[in-house]
């Protein structure tokens, strides 16, 4: 038996074993008690009078968190307070991952100067930047007919609707960020939605528009600054003779978690904008497709798809 078929055999046997073990564990897990059995908790009572809670019958960390939520934090959304209060340190780590991913993507996709200067040739140079051309529709990727894949001006209806939608997208994203404390949402989800503006600009005005509208290095710096704000808010707890990430402002609906939430919201928005711009720049650093290149594209695509 050669090594290739034995490798396949090993793979199939292992996958079956993993599935079998997984299913047996799943049956066991489905029969065990839920991680948080909240049937005994009076949530209405907790909401009306936050200080009346009883932790003696707790059956998990979640039980304690729900009981203490209204008393010790200012948020109505328990997930929000878990993310920013009880486990704020994890959220910090999560943001570090985003910064790491951006720095890593920048490092991987960088073009050194000695490898030849970057040449960007546009098919048709825009006479006026406000009517910038050079847009490539996203849908062109899935489109078989590449004769449409010319750098031509986007229809006016797209540009108009994007100008209409863009403020809406930003406002909606920030609405979700700021209302995270009382409705589903929070820094991360809203930040991603607000970062969609880059794509809107790209759809309507192409890479030129994106370059005009956004400054990636500024975005990177400000996102790092917002992350430092998070860390400093955490460190303030230490200087208040308490521990890291301590919630030292707590009155009514105000708490440090709000600052952290906004910092994470801005951080995620700027970070994902930055990520998208880096990827789009990688797309645009090349020369425009030659016209005669469209013949062998279909073959090439067949080769790309396995």
């Amino acid at each position, binding site marked *: 038996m050669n090594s290739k078929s034995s490798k396949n055999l090993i793979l199939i046997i292992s996958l079956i074993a993993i599935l079998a073990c997984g299913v047996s564990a799943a049956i066991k897990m489905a029969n065990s008690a839920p991680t948080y059995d909240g049937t005994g908790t009076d949530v209405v009572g907790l909401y009306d009078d936050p200080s009346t809670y009883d932790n003696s019958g707790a059956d998990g960390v979640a039980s304690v968190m729900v009981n203490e939520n209204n008393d010790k934090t200012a948020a109505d959304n328990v997930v929000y307070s878990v993310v920013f209060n009880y486990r704020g340190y994890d959220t910090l780590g999560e943001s570090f991952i985003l910064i790491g991913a951006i720095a890593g993507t920048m490092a*991987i996709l960088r073009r050194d100067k000695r490898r030849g200067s970057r040449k960007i040739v546009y098919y048709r140079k825009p006479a006026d930047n406000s009517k910038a051309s050079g847009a490539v529709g996203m849908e062109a990727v899935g489109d078989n007919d590449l004769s449409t894949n010319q750098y031509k001006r986007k229809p006016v209806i797209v540009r108009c609707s994007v100008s209409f939608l863009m403020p809406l997208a930003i406002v909606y994203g920030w609405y979700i960020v700021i209302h995270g404390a009382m409705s589903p949402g929070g820094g991360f989800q809203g930040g991603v939605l607000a970062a969609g503006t880059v794509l809107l600009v790209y759809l309507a005005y192409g890479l030129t528009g994106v370059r005009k509208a956004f400054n990636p290095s500024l975005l990177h710096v400000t996102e790092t600054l917002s992350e430092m704000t998070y860390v400093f808010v955490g460190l303030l*707890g230490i200087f208040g003779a308490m521990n890291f990430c301590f919630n030292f402002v707590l009155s009514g609906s105000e708490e440090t978690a709000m600052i952290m939430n906004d910092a994470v919201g801005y951080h995620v928005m700027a970070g994902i904008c930055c990520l998208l711009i880096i990827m789009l720049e990688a797309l645009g650093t090349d020369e425009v497709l030659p016209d005669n290149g469209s013949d062998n594209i279909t073959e090439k695509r067949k080769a790309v798809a396995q």
Partner: protein
Amino acid sequence: MTQLFDQFYNFVGTDINHFPIFAIVTLFLGAFIIAIVGKLNKTLRNVIVFIVTIIPFLLMLSLIKPIMIDGGVINYWMGNWAPVGEWAIGIGLEVDALSLFFGLIVTLAVFIVAIYSFTYMNRDSSLENYYTLFLMLSGALLGLVLTGDLFNIFVMIEIMTMTEVALTAFRVDYDGALEGAMKYMVVGSLGSSTVLVGIAMLYSQLHTLNLAQIAASLPSHQNAVTAAAFAFLFIGFASKAFLFPFHPLEADVNAVAPASISMIISGVITKCGVYAIIRICYILFQNIELPAVSISVTLLGAVSCFICVTMAFNQHNFRRLLAYHSISQIGYVIMAVGLGSMFGLEAGLFHAVNHTLFKGLLFLTAGAVQYATGSADLDKLGGLVKKMPQTCALFLIGAASISGLPPFNGFASKWMIYQSVFEKASETGNFVYVIVVVVCLLCSVLTLASFIKVAQSVFFGQLNPEFNKPEVHEVPVVMQIPMWILAGLCVLFGVFPNFIQKYFLTPAATAAFNVTNYIDTMLGQGTAAKAGIQQTEIGTVSSIGCWQPVSWLWLLLIITCAVCLIAVLGSNDNKKHATALNAEEKVSDLVGVKQSGAGRLNNVAADASLKGVASDHLLSDQELIIISRDRTIEDEVLAGEDPKYENFFSGEKSEFSQVGGSDLFWGFKHDMRHYFNFQKDWHSGNVNDYTTYGVAAIAVTLVLAILFL
């Protein structure tokens, strides 16, 4: 001096609890500051990196007294979310002696690498990204060893994986950098997914994420789900330590990453995997005492050790060779950790720190060689001792340490490992441990052999004319300082092992066994007793394991003197005799013209003596001509494309080894060619295959865990 210390600790008071989080946050803040100002000024950037790497090291050093010597445990609840009742709702940092031991390793290595990077990386572009990623990697490593929360471990592992991939691919123009990064990304994400699944399964049974609380409630909740969770967590962390089925990755990653990052990967990241394995086996699940777990872990270590040391034998790239040796040494550590005895754990920890020192030293010398010559190919290098004498001396110290020669640290820890395996074998009477001892000794010999080969082909022998240029010279002093620090530590740790054992190893190993103390410090006194966890008997360490370095040193000196004396006195006769012997071999091998590669090097010397031997053997001149002709034919064969010499493999296809010539152990390898060809099939360099091995490892561990736990 002690007064000064007392004053310091009095001044700090209970604020010492903040030190671990300060150490972690300093590194991360440094990364942010570099991201902002790194582009502006080179000097400013280096100063910031220096400051933010030395501060955590000093903080960790200052924690030695309260934790290592006084035996305390720092517990620190983020945001003052102290446990309510018995439920730990917040994230806690939990610094016991074991964590601090690994924290010291991490911070020391990071500090040394930071100094080394200042010069080593100065030819690259976009360095602010390099330092950002590097500092984030170090912060994640420190956070991983100091944390007390299972999910936080996962987050830190993910930061580690992400930054490590980016740093591996940092030199994008370098051949294979992207490929190594891609392989690590794929298989690393496999490991991360398994860790996540394990965490989810544990949470579904225990309803908590705090390590101490899991340790308290696990013994009463053992079932199939926790067994499966153990398997998932174990294999996830094993993939981070690059144990047996994951070992090709380390070679791929280390061969292409910048040498400074190679030191971090092989010296620290693997240690973090070992740390996590110790954590889950000794404290979380407390199942290392079970024979099934103990034997499996020990065997895993032995298998990693053996396979990697034989794989290293074939390598023709300096750094790939070092990478395989790295896993081989990690195999030793895991072997000792799997014994589950106090002495075994001490030995494993000692070897872990020694491995960081000597493997760091070797990687840095490899980086220095690459910095000076631009090549890491063992076949191209040679004779560099004339050009880089200091680097050669440093390399010899590292090689002596890793091969376990007496006055250096490798010998001390390997001795302890043998001793502990012997003890375990005599205690249990299990035959497996006897095999493990044999494998251990064999691997040690093979390690020595392959380092002799490296020394011969890099630093001694003929100087490649390509490198006989004035540009090839000793590396700058900034790169030498960190190497000398590491070399000094290698010698120090080897000469004073008893000191290290008393102040570092015994507290760390005791902490790993002292589960009740760990739980009680975090969750309040009496929690462990309520959960039904007994104080485990902490075995006393018998003194046979502690060797007497001074007497060994004397012995070594005497032997060295004797050898030198003999060499000086009988040098002429000796030399003639040796070459004569060599020639004699050749003549006797005349029938089946099979000449060892090593012998070919001596051809020039042998020619002179050949006539003499030939006359001894009463060979006519004609036959002598035949010999010479055969030799020339053979030389052509060696230089040409004889498939016989392509049995062995390493690195890229373009660098396929033409075995022969410079390889000292060609004959040995040729005899073992079936084994090596088998290994060649399985180490195919295809990422799909590596994923397959990972999946198979998960399946095997799962089945074993569900059957035996």
